[in-house]
């Protein structure tokens, strides 16, 4: 609906340029009265719907001072969209339609798969055991500068 709406919007704009005919409020960024009526009837969430308004979680940094707007109290009454509720499904690529998965997305999937594999582990960590022989002490803080990291006792 969105894309076809914007297409119509464009053609309306062009017809507006070629000849000033009856353009029914479409040149505005906002909805026309007819569009508003459709939105209000079919898509708008009202109190009678019994569903909460969906909201996205806000960015919050544990280790930084948070500047961004503090969450409104009414957000408790909204449905927070969760990005971790279905983490068990995320160790494989989900189907795509028009947009392919990004590298970033594949990184995410790989890490979720790695976590899934490590979930069964007890005690020693295979990742650690695999990497330990490759560690060169001059690559890390302990080797580069002692003043910066006081925890170089190991």
């Amino acid at each position, binding site marked *: 609906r969105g894309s076809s709406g914007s297409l119509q919007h464009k053609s309306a704009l062009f017809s507006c340029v070629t000849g000033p005919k009856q353009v029914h409020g479409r040149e505005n960024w906002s909805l026309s009265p007819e569009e508003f009526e459709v939105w209000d009837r079919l898509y708008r969430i009202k109190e009678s719907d019994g569903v909460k308004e969906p909201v996205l979680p806000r*960015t919050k*940094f544990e280790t*930084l*001072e*948070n*500047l*961004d707007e503090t969450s409104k109290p009414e957000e408790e009454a909204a449905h927070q969209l969760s990005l971790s509720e279905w983490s068990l499904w995320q160790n494989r690529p989900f189907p795509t339609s028009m947009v392919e998965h990004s*590298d*970033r997305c594949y*990184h995410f999937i*790989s*890490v979720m798969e*790695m*976590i899934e594999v*490590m*979930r069964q*582990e007890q*005690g*020693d*960590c295979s*990742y*650690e055991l*695999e*990497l*330990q*022989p*490759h*560690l*060169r002490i001059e*690559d*890390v*803080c302990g080797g580069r*500068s002692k003043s*910066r*990291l006081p*925890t170089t006792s190991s």
Partner: protein
Amino acid sequence: QRLRAAVHYTAGCLCREVAEDKGVQFSKQSIAAIAEITFRQCENFARDLEMFARHAKRSTINSEDVKLLARRSNSLLKYITQKSEEIASSNMEQKEKKKKKSSASKGRRTSEEQEAAVSESEDSNM
């Protein structure tokens, strides 16, 4: 793998600091997962930084590109900008004193670690 090992070690050090700070413990597996995420995130950063610099018709990545990585969060952007100014002013002091040739040595450990990892991973990509 050598780079991964270095990231893993450093992630372990940082996690130990957080663990002491918060009075919690990290399992070895969670540290490994954080290390792997960091390693892969460096690939994202490296690619973005390279594109940002190229977008500005530069071949050298500078601190403005790094700031652009943090553009989506005001808090993060403010933090990075402050650090960048601190580094710049300490660089100026060092130049005036002409004591040290090495620059940016007073940067925050993790950010420098990431930048170092970024440049190294870029080298290995080529």
